[in-house]
């Protein structure tokens, strides 16, 4: 093992500073009053208005309809993030299971079809996708928000690689032990994939949470606004004739960062395990 020296710590500290400083500045600034921010710019000191600002942001009803709260938007983001991550894992595990463990006609054709979806992220096919959702009357629904995002092969590939690394004898032992395809999947593959699932969950949750373009297109009803798109929306609406509510914008940005950070903190042990070590 390399012994850490003073210089290594300096590099680490610089890294930490670069990563964390903007967040600290945003947080500190958000505790000041809008007028102060307007006068003094960004701030590194505690402003003392933490509770009011965050309460306002979370609970004040705003928007054109006067019904949308920050809390409401947060909930929508959560549904999108969770729905996307869970949907993605379920879908890609099943697809990978089929690809790796079953011989079916035209298997390699299907494999390549799935593969090509990697070349077609949502941004490329956004108009046709919107058309389809519109025709299905799924705009302004959670389904419409989540499902089109699911259609891409990234997760499938992670799981395919993982399943291929599982020794064949495990399947054979399970077959002799009387486990059919479904039982083998649930009893053996899913538990073995736990770390992999955690890793993919984090990646996908953050990806879903941070979606901006698709929710902007899909939702016109403010009741379905997500936090990320709401930051801008709320600013637009709340900007008064005098001073923009900078403090609330910062507070909202901090809130928008919080859940992904928490997910990473909670799952990071598994995340690292899933990406580095195979549990066999």
């Amino acid at each position: 093992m390399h012994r850490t020296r003073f210089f290594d710590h300096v590099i680490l500290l610089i890294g930490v500073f670069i990563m964390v400083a903007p967040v600290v500045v945003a947080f500190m600034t958000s505790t000041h009053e809008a007028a102060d921010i307007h006068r003094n710019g960004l701030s590194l000191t505690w402003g003392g208005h933490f509770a009011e600002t965050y309460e306002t942001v979370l609970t004040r009803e705003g928007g054109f309809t006067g019904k949308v709260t920050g809390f409401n938007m947060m909930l929508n983001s959560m549904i999108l993030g969770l729905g996307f991550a869970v949907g993605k894992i379920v879908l890609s595990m099943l697809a990978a299971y089929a690809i790796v463990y079953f011989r079916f006609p035209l298997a390699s054709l299907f494999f390549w079809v799935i593969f090509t979806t990697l070349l077609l992220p949502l941004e490329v096919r956004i108009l046709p996708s919107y058309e389809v959702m519109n025709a299905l009357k799924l705009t302004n629904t959670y389904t419409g928000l989540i499902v089109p995002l699911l259609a891409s092969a990234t997760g499938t590939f992670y799981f395919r690689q993982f399943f291929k690394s599982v020794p064949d004898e495990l399947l054979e032992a399970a077959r002799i032990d009387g486990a059919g395809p479904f039982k083998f999947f649930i009893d053996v593959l899913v538990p073995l994939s736990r770390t992999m699932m955690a890793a993919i969950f984090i990646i996908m949750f953050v990806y879903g949470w941070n979606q901006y373009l698709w929710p902007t297109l899909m939702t016109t009803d403010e009741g379905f606004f997500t936090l990320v798109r709401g930051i801008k929306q709320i600013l637009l609406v709340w900007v008064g004739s005098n001073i923009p509510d900078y403090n609330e914008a910062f507070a909202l940005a901090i809130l928008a960062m919080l859940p992904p950070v928490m997910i990473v903190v909670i799952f990071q042990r598994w995340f690292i395990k899933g990406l580095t070590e195979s549990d066999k």
Partner: protein
Amino acid sequence: MAAIDIAGVSKIYTGGVEAVKSVSIDIADGEFIVLVGPSGCGKSTLLRMVAGLETISKGNVTIGTRLVNDVDPAERDIAMVFQNYALYPHMTVYENLAYGLRNRGTPKAEIDARVAEAARMLEIEPYLDRKPRALSGGQRQRVAMGRAIVRKPAAFLFDEPLSNLDAKLRVSMRGEIKRLQKRLGTTSLYVTHDQLEAMTLADRLVVLNGGRIEQIGRPLEVYHAPASTFVASFIGSPAMNLLKGVLEGGRLHLGTHAIDLDYPAPTRGPVTVGLRAEDLRPASAGEQALLFRVDYVEELGAQRLVHGAVEDQPLTVALPPETPLASELAIAIPMDRLHFFSAENGKRLQRRGETDRTAMAVPARPQAVNLESVS
């Protein structure tokens, strides 16, 4: 428990590789059969066809009285032990043993009882709550055995179960497998490439070569009367010496040596002569002998292996450790221990009046072995 009948079984893999070629083996109830052969000879393929993990291209496999060609592995009433153990990594030892029973809807109380019994037999009781990761290779091997035992199957199938263990553990596990098999009386089919493992475990062994059976027989039968040069060089360590010779007028010519046989020659013309290193000894004065040039010596402690050549044909001789060595030795010809093989196809040429030295060594029915003496 059940007999297994393998009748004219072939395996042709997609792509046309014929890995097993019309193999027939009749396995008696309770018998321990070892499939032995070099790597790639189709042992695993044959075993996996019996297990149901590989489809049978031709022929029939019958377990008990049931034709199982189209029966699922789980329904064949067999249990298999794999080389890499194939334990479920996320389950505890207990769960590993119980999984197959649970899937069959065995009542909880009976599962507990059976797992406890198997664990006691294999001395893995202290590890029942551990994950396989936290076990040594030998312990994992025991768990894999346990998973087979709890099911109380009609037959055990082993695919090189000891290959991943170190030499010492391999010897002790070998003994243990034999002991367990005798105690349970379960028909067993065991695959290995290790001839020593095959010799020590088998009631009967089946020597495979290129997907075909070279010989089936009790270990000593195969050792003393190999059916072909392939078997001769594969079974026994060191490998049997095979020399080119010519039989003519009741004499065996090995290069410039001419040896008078005291029995009728099995054929005339060129032959392959087999000589086991351990059947050779220094000649006393006046005996018919081969002039043996010594190249180098391997000391094994109990004996020394002397490698050299008779004229231009390599020969290995096993001598007692105290034998004096010179650069040239006169080696006696053990007349009644000469093996003759056809020079064309390597098949054994039976001598007339050859005594069957295996008959006295092994009881006729393998099951008749006294269980107390082995367990």
